[in-house]
């Protein structure tokens, strides 16, 4: 049959979908499916997902960013949601789940509107008005006096961080938060390291001012205190030529002395390091046997750090300047450590580098847990905590947590919607309704009766108690300011904004045209499991 219309313009094998039913509704369906997956992970009582990625690595997590990252979402519309989640993760580092779940909810409600007969463009305009109003309202909800904070005050930091960490590791936030908050003044995300060591339990976790290297010292000296450190990026060894060279020997004397000169040279270099006052040598590459021999002889401790990043951090910890090749170090280039010692933690030998003095800003959270998956999940919780810390340094304002803010927003936006004329009114009302998703999910995930909770929350808020949210410990509604559950304003702000943007983008699409996938060796082709 002769192709006609759009089919005649495109290469064979393309896909073309258009119209409300085929494109918009189907897009919404896909997004809904995605958000159902992430939704059950929302909040402290959220359930974990077991995701096995294409490399056969197992993730057990309730961190939405990780889940969607490993899911390999294929659907183009659903991908937009994933991107919104990722944007949130990059901007703030927390709240990705709120973004995706909220966007999913917005779209679900949009579907109802479409079925009612509204045109997507009307929904979009309503949603846009909704989000603008929401942001205005959100600002009003900010807790008074929270815009100024002392980021070095541990208490204040923990207050703001608690909710973020609790949503990942409920019941353990009281242990984790101080670990994250106990960081030096000079804050930078890269300065907080996490060392995961199998065995023990979370209560064994500690913070080390300095670094924890996951290997033992090279030589026999395993412990040294208050020592100067020389760092050599290029390895501690005799230097060899890059180009292939051959040493020509002409006489017996030369042959006999050949080895001796090399030995003397290495000894001279090592002695140079010793004379500069260094007690610890750190090598970025291999440590030659001959060099090690002389290090032992001169009682130097030798560490090997093969990762360039680790080496750079080590320099930052100790204040040392990495020298490219083995040479006589300048006293200014030496770093200082309080102590370096090899310790055995849970059957693994690690080198603990401590430095309290000077401008050291690197600290390491040593996490303990009984399985790799628990450790990975703890690490993500710590990451979220660190990111929240970063965010609160930018903007320390906070809003009531535990769904109190969402209910208040839902109520206010609904009121605002009623004042609007035209079809926008419906869209704004649905927008407001979408906020209910948060308390509903929180309650459902905690095994509570969602409808009962929501209605009582509305009642409380109508009486002006805008800080009343869900207390998940006891399963009742309470004033969250008394429970000290706070969310960062900036996290909420971006999460809601990204979600609304993503939802509008998905709604705006009315046609999907997929070109035929390019030829060439396709990844899936040889995998026979597609057929069966």
């Amino acid at each position, binding site marked *: 049959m002769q192709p006609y219309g759009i089919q005649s313009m495109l290469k064979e094998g393309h896909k073309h979908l258009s119209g409300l039913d085929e494109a918009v509704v189907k897009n919404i369906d896909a997004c809904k499916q995605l958000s159902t*997956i992430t939704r059950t992970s929302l909040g402290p009582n959220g*359930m974990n997902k077991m995701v096995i990625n294409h490399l056969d*690595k197992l993730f057990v997590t309730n961190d939405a960013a990780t889940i969607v990252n490993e899911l390999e979402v294929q659907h183009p519309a659903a991908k937009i949601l994933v991107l919104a989640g990722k944007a949130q993760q990059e901007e703030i580092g927390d709240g990705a789940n709120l973004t995706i779940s909220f966007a999913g909810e917005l779209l679900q409600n949009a579907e109802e509107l479409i079925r009612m007969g509204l045109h997507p463009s009307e929904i979009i305009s309503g949603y846009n008005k909704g989000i603008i109003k929401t942001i205005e309202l959100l600002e009003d909800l900010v807790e008074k006096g929270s815009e100024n904070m002392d980021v070095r005050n541990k208490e204040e930091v923990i207050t703001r961080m608690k909710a973020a960490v609790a949503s990942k590791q409920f019941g353990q936030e009281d242990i984790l938060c101080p670990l994250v908050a106990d960081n030096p003044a000079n804050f930078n995300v890269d300065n907080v390291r996490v060392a995961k060591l199998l065995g023990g339990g979370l209560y064994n976790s500690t913070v080390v001012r300095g670094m924890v290297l996951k290997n033992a010292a090279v030589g026999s000296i395993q412990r040294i205190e208050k020592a100067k450190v020389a760092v050599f990026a290029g390895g501690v060894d005799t230097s060899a030529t890059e180009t292939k060279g051959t040493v020509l020997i002409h006489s017996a004397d030369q042959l006999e002395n050949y080895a001796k000169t090399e030995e003397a040279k290495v000894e001279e270099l090592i002695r140079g390091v010793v004379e500069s006052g260094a007690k610890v040598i750190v090598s970025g590459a291999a440590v030659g046997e001959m060099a090690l021999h002389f290090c032992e002889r001169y009682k130097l401790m030798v560490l090997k750090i093969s990762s360039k990043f680790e080496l750079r951090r080590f320099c930052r910890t100790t204040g040392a300047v990495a020298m490219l090749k083995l040479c006589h170090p300048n006293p200014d280039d030496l770093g200082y450590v309080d102590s370096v010692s090899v310790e055995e933690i849970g059957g693994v030998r690690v080198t603990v580098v401590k430095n309290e003095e000077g401008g050291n800003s690197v600290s390491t959270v040593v996490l303990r847990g009984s399985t790799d998956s628990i450790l990975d999940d703890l690490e993500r919780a710590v990451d979220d905590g660190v990111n929240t810390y970063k965010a609160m340094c930018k903007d320390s304002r906070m809003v009531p947590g535990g769904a109190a803010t969402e209910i208040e927003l839902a109520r206010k936006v609904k009121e605002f919607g009623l004042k609007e004329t035209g079809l926008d009114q419906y869209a704004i009302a649905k927008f407001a309704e979408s906020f209910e998703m948060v308390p509903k999910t929180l309650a459902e995930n905690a095994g509570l009766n969602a409808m009962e909770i929501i209605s009582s929350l509305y009642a409380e808020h109508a009486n002006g108690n805008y800080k009343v949210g869900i207390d998940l410990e006891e399963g009742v509604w309470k004033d969250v300011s008394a429970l000290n559950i706070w969310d960062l304003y900036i996290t909420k702000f971006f999460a809601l904004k990204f979600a609304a943007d993503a939802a509008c983008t998905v709604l705006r699409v009315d046609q999907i045209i997929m070109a035929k996938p390019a030829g060439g060796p396709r*990844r899936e082709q040889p995998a026979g499991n597609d057929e069966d």
Partner: protein
Amino acid sequence: MAAMMQPQIILLKEGTDTSQGKAQLVSNINACTVVADTVRTTLGPRGMDKLIHDDKGNVTISNDGATIMKLLDIVHPAAKILVDIAKSQDSEVGDGTTTVVLLAGEFLKEAKPFIEDGVHPQNLIRSYRTACSLAIEKIKELAISIEGKTREEKKSLLAKCAATTLSSKLIGGEKEFFASMVVDAVVAIGNEDKLNMIGIKKVPGGSMRDSFLVDGVAFKKTFSYAGFEQQPKKFLKPKILLLNIELELKSEKENAEIRLSDPSQYQSIVDAEWNIIYDKLDKCVQSGAKVVLSRLAIGDLGTQYFADRDIFCAGRVSEEDLLRVAAATGGTVQTSVNNVIDEVLGTCEVFEEKQVGNERFNIFSGCPSGLTATIVLRGGADQFIEEAERSLHDAIMIVRRALKNSTVVAGGGAIDMEISRFLRQHARTIAGKSQLFINSYAKALEVIPRQLCDNAGFDATDVLNKLRQKHALPTGEGAPYGVDINTGGIADSFANFVWEPSVVKINAINAATEAACLILSVDETVKNPKSESAQGEAAASAMGGRGRGGAAFRGRGGRGMRRR
């Protein structure tokens, strides 16, 4: 296929496998229960061993939970978590690996009816966590410190702990013999926290009783060249030189080349080479050392040169052994023979080469720094010695942990019963659902004494009832009562010296709870199709490991540190 290419159906990549909901949770629990069932029968002194035959035809007989779990090669994602906790228990405390798997399995089993009845997993998790922290507090409260005792007393106390561990193993028949050996070895290395300083050497033949402990280093005679026979085989207080160079005639450097214009010079070059090696040998001799060990080869020439001068030498000593000799004798390994000062030479009381079974052993005993010990294990079959080695490793770890933490609790299921009783009592004070959950947690803990009885062929219900009665005594005097494996009744475990370091129990309960909570908290599994490169990788490792964690399932070599 193109016709059904509706994009909304394919949210995820083709071949992605998802399952979710209650059914999925129950299936995860079932998988874990099955795994726990396999190791169940190995618990306790009367536990049975497992024979595992892998695809390469290697046979392992073991009673050690961690070893069995590793060899089982589990692919189920949820059940893998149990393997992880066994591994964690192994690295943290070294023993109690069966216990931890069994407990986790039992916690999940108890949770299953609740899940099926529609209880939200989070409620269970919260109660389990509370129960766990209560249990740990209780253990700490019940633990008895062995701090402040004299060295001798402490030693006998530690031997009790080691004996408890060993009683559940293949070499349980000789537990006193091995327990004192293990304690001596651990006490010898002192506070220096280095497991690899205790060497375990295996020599087939003889009986278990022929095993012995060397307060120094022992290793099998290395390959030797002609002239070795003439070397003396016993020294008193010899000086020991440790080298990392070859004492052999060979080219000096890879990249050196000799070009001669005058043929008459040729002989001088040959002489020079000989001079170099003679010079090295001479320096070794001049250092005053009577024993020369090298990590690299010592050739014919060197062997004979040393033999002529009444020096013992051994080349190709494995690095581990060499380092142990260095630590024991106080010497340092030299990479050059120039400038050998007295300081780098080690020494020991007696060096001798002895016949052990049909092997010859080089034994350094009476080392000054005393930081090493070597256990030479004898036994009938290879598998037997392998298992004995694993058992000793567990015992060594237990003694080390006991030494470090210095608190012990009563074994034989006594502590489990006591915690169980305590939790039941506590549960009654709680209003609400968690009462049920904490009760089920308490019930799960009873699996330890129950299994001990089952494995020994006793009537578990009968014994448990007796135990419950004892533990329920209001005076609290029944707290240390556990299963008496000899009579089939109950007995005061503490008085019978069935002791365990408290850290073993704490870690076991903690790890088991964490694992159980993790499995309960999963409500969805998404399995992405493997990418092609990963498939190749997986085929290469043939074990379906998972990225970095794969090493755990490679069976042998996993618990590398006990290999020697």
